């Protein structure tokens, strides 16, 4: 799951013209941030700088630190000419492009249903949210067995409906990616619904009443009031889920190891494989950077699109 979000930053009020009223000396502020800053510098800033440097080198673990060789932009040109890379880009686009919008849409539908006054709402919310808090591994192993082609429950149920020629799921290069998408939607839907529910708390109720008075039907009310008021949430979910889905390799590493063949080798897994199975760190760093730039460009495009559409921003 993604832990990378870009919170909306509201800047603290700037100090007035004379720069400093009654207040503590600079030293105090520094002391307060120091513990966190030292850690972030050591474990985030420095690694980031080194990953950029690494991307311009050819290095594997075996040759030791002395064996680092600068090769300029070769890694990048190789990545861009690498059919395996483009193949995994395509699979990532399918994987994220199908699972994320469906997760968001189904999550919204679920939230609108849960927002009504129904028996046992709290319990329902907890049920749908549960897959999100359970670990990837526990979920993955459960689905692995549920989707076992011969003994799994999923095919038993499908067979009970009279279907024949059942999917081989993770054993089939055609069905493995759809199976991953199903699991991704199942585990993300409740999360999306919970986020939507909190957005619905702030929905403009007076508008609904006014619209009802004017005889607007439910669909019209949704289209003109609910949908626009949920737009920021929708974009937030699309962006965070998209980033999370395009980066997480845990589920793939656990369930298919990128297979059968390379049917489920998505970008994040390809990078993991390059770095940690073949120990080609320079190349892995370059894959990571190219991916990052691509995801960033798409994310910015989404924000732009939202800003253009937003009503009063």
């Amino acid at each position, binding site marked *: 799951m993604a832990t990378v979000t870009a919170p909306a930053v509201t800047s603290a009020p700037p100090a007035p013209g004379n720069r400093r009223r009654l207040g503590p000396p600079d030293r105090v502020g520094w002391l307060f941030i120091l513990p966190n800053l030292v850690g972030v510098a050591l474990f985030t800033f420095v690694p980031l700088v080194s990953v950029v440097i690494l991307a311009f080198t050819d290095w594997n673990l075996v040759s030791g630190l002395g064996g680092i060789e600068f090769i300029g932009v070769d890694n990048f040109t190789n990545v861009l000419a690498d059919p395996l890379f483009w193949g995994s880009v395509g699979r990532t686009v399918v994987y994220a492009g199908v699972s994320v919008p469906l997760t968001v849409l189904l999550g919204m539908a679920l939230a609108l249903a849960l927002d009504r006054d129904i028996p046992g709402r709290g319990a329902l919310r907890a049920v749908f949210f549960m897959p999100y*808090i359970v670990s990837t591994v526990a979920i993955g192993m459960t689905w692995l067995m549920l989707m076992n082609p011969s003994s799994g429950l999923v095919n038993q149920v499908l067979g009970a409906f009279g279907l024949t020629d059942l999917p081989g799921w993770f*054993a089939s290069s055609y069905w493995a990616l759809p199976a991953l998408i199903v699991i991704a939607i199942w585990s993300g839907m409740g999360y999306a619904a919970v986020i939507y529910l909190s957005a619905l708390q702030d929905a403009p109720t007076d508008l609904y009443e006014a619209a009802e008075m004017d005889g607007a039907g439910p669909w019209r009310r949704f289209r003109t009031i609910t949908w626009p008021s949920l737009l920021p949430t929708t974009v937030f979910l699309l962006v965070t889920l998209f980033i999370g889905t395009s980066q997480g390799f845990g589920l793939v590493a656990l369930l298919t190891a990128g297979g059968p063949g390379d049917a489920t080798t998505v970008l994040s897994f390809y990078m993991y494989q390059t770095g940690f199975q073949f120990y080609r760190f320079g190349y892995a760093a370059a894959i990571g950077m190219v991916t*990052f730039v691509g995801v960033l460009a798409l994310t910015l495009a989404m924000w732009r699109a939202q800003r253009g559409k937003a009503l009063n921003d």
Partner: protein
Amino acid sequence: MTDATLTRVPARTAAAPRANLTPRQRRARRNRWLWGIPLWLLALAFLAPFAWMVSTSLKSNLDAFTIPMQWIPDPAQWDSYVEVLTGENSILPAFANSVIVAVARVLGEVLTATMAGYAFARLHFRGRDKIFLAYLATSIIPAQLLLVPRFIYFQQLSLYDTLLALILPGMFTVLGTFLMRQFFVAQPAAFAEAARIDGANEWQIFWRLYLPMATPVISALGILAFVWSWNDYETPLVLISSPEVYTLPLSLTGFADEQGALAPNLSMAASVVSIIPVLIVFLLLQKRFVQALTHTGIK
């Protein structure tokens, strides 16, 4: 789910006596079930994998493969639990490792993020906004990109394959700092100014005035940090190799092969054990957990 949860009337609807219901209220009451029943059916389908997990964990290995599958294990037996807790591949050491990592990470993150978030929001010092901008910039960096350089570092520092490799990066997070800063920015500055005039020192102002206000946010951050730490699979996958240093997610994978065939009863029992702590935290603190999640971005 017990019947109690099904029949409990939500706070929103005061149970009105039947006699004087307006048609509108009567319609609303019928609609509750009209929407409620399909949603509960969907919820049951959603829960099916978990029900299957529990059911399989209570079967013998042979029964686990019976087709068609039996939802109620007969005979139900705890052998799988005994095996995964006390057997040769006991998950208890990994469980202990997971606890150590989670506790250290939560304490570290909450402490350093609260202090830093407070300073970014409420104290003025030279370079504050530049540093914060740098924080902001890193927040959009995929965590995955950091795995390669961190792996190399920990190799060089001989921390590879130790719990410290999992603990240290998780103790100092940008995201936690954001969360705390967002909270402190919204608090009034007047308290601090008044306290300064009264001669309180900065530490007292933070500790006595602002920290108590922040308890809900701090506990929310703590819950999030715990769940992330507990479920983290990718970091140990890359940074840990010896079985005695495994955390729970790694030790669980030993009970299943890629075909999902190897001892389903054992792997499901291990999974159930691994889920319990997170489930307890979640069910006890559900509201706060959800609040924390919604605060990590929107607003």
